[in-house]
């Protein structure tokens, strides 16, 4: 896995700050057997003309609706409790996104009490954080409609290997 997020060092979070995206770069240009990447070598989704979603992005749908939706609502749409991640995934730099998932976030003041927990030690989240990221980006640009993706590619052997290594590692 080129972007093995759980292994990212803290240094990357600092280096990745303040990359405000003016244009959303979601076009897949390269693939490493596990997932697709854009021209900046950031994970992205690939949806075929017949609507078939790449496996990692489908995996992201599944993991999002186990780990994230109890606060952030279905389909990355946000809730009364937490913001719409389909927007955050577009507005936040990739590394800031990973940093928020890993280290959590807090906004505690007179107007709000918002706390995002740190998932850095949770393999159910961290082994799939790139999947969740590409799923939310696909939702953000409306390349994927709400709900369960109707068609998906099969899980590749390389993905299965990387998944196993991460979950057992």
């Amino acid at each position, binding site marked *: 896995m080129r972007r093995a997020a759980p292994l990212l060092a803290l240094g990357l979070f600092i280096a990745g700050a303040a990359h405000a995206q003016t244009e959303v770069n979601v076009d897949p240009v390269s693939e490493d057997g596990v997932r697709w990447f854009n021209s900046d070598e950031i994970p992205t989704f690939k949806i075929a003309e017949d609507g078939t979603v790449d496996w990692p992005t489908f995996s992201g749908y599944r993991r999002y609706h186990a780990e994230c939706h*109890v606060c952030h609502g279905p389909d990355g749409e946000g809730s*009364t409790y937490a913001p719409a991640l389909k927007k955050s995934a577009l507005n936040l730099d990739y590394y800031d996104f990973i940093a928020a998932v890993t280290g959590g976030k807090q906004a505690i003041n007179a107007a709000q009490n918002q706390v995002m927990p740190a998932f850095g030690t949770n393999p*159910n989240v961290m082994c799939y954080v790139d999947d969740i990221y590409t799923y939310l980006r696909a939702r953000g640009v409306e390349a994927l409609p709400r709900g369960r993706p109707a068609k998906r590619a099969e899980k590749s052997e390389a993905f299965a290997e990387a998944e196993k290594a991460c979950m057992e590692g």
Partner: protein
Amino acid sequence: MKKCVIGLIAGLMTTAAVPALANESVTAGAEDPKQWTMQLSNYAGTSYSELDEINKENVGDLQVDWTFSTGVLRGHEGSPLVIDDVMYVHTPFPNMVYALDLNDEGRILWRYTPEQNPDVIGVMCCDTVNRGVAAADGMIFLNQADTTLVALDAKTGEVKWSVKNGDPTKGETATATPLVVGDKIFVGISGGEYGVRGHMTAYNIADGSLAWRAYSTGPDEDMLVDPEKTTVLGKPIGADSSLNSWEGDQWQIGGGTTWGWTTYDPELNLIYYGTGNPSTWNPSQRPGDNKWSMTIMARDPDTGMAKWFYQKTPHDEWDYDGVNENILVDQEIDGEMRKLLVNMDRNGFGYTLDRETGELLVAEKYDPKVNWATHVEMDPNSDQYGRPQVVAEFSTEQNGEDTNSTGICPAALGSKDQQPAAYSPKTGLFYVPTNHVCMDYEPFRVSYTAGQPYVGATLSMFPAPDSHGGMGNFIAWDATKGEIKWSLPEQFSVWSGALATAGDVVFYGTLEGYLKAIDSETGEELYKFKTPSGIIGNVFTYEHDGKQYVGVLSGVGGWAGIGLAAGLTNANDGLGAVGGYAALSDYTALGGQLTVFTLPSST
């Protein structure tokens, strides 16, 4: 409830003889309908009031009398208490308590703001709700999000004692209201989505010292069960009943949390509460019946010893937490007066049991769309006695990991969640706020990390198909027969606790923010008013200076606000219908406010 007292002037009511075991201040408060001293109105949990100044003839004239902003934007569950001209209003995290002087236009007498590590917010699965304070012996008891149970002086708000009931770094949190019986206070624990091992714990109200703790799972001595004397459906529970129903030591992270309501029968001297889902949501990862998750428990409040258990959903495959309130009523079944316990479970079945013995009398669906089980086996001679008969198509266990089981009703929200039902002794009916939502559910393998979510299933929810298109109903239920008397369709899940009164009126709130009043006999809508935010609080009533008031906390949120804010979609409907269902965010926004209603003075 006593039918004979209806119509009596409240102040003239005499205190019924009760055993010394019930807390006298609590009993006296609950028997004075001018006050609202318990979250569910009384020990029996009927959410019923003898007040009848506001009745079905005049409720249409109801007006807002006064309002109060809580200063907190999260989901507001539970209700304020009213004791001796003072109203105690609680909030979600940061769990403030306000004492309002009803003799001085609601002036704030004192406020309590606990200091809590905000990290706890991150491990509260579904909003930072709190279901309200309890009161006894001049003290107000608050079960804070971080599991600190604190006793406040009701006059000054000063902390008399506090005790820590759990550890948020392991995912243990608190949302339930405590209950006081005698010299003890009972508190439950939340965190079923974090693999928390559930327990009910009793503290001495004098000083907060531990009296007993009864776990939902594990060895008999941890659960406070007697293999011979504790019964299940009339038979001894036997040794190691929980240990034998799990693989290895999975019971240690097996859930069975106790975040719902507790009720009490002073004559039988038993407390009743339910246990939540087994962890994880992936059933294949935890073979066995997973006892005693999903169970109604009857215990001796003095010792904690279990009298009887009944497991409603053995080996849960759908997250149907069994924590809903157990309402205690005396009604006739087959010509015989019975001491009943009525439980409208999340799994869609309304259960009626004998609350002395735990005998199962009625188990029927209270939403006709419930499809995961055909029925509950009622034949005592069957080896399936008391067990729901699961439909293979909707069994996420039988369909297996990584398979999406579709069209399961109800959804994980349950046909009813925590929102308490009400019971009117005048009609003999239960008034039940319900969800009318179904789901697709796909379990998959997860690993356990302490203090991290331990879920293991993807689910998507949608309004019950081939119905009215809405996501809720408000129903009247005959618990002696297991029949729906009438059903009012609602656009959204009804997530507010109901109130029934001797004025032949039933009140409830809606997620759009309406307070509604309906005829307790017919369900006819008599009044509605749109409060500032969606209602997930419980409607309450009290009398002050000779006038009856009805109040409710607004403040959308909770599981309902999370799941329904953006509206639901149904992938099975095809692309055309996606996004076609109402989004709660189109109707309401955050805001914590109390709205109090009364009749105009001239009427």
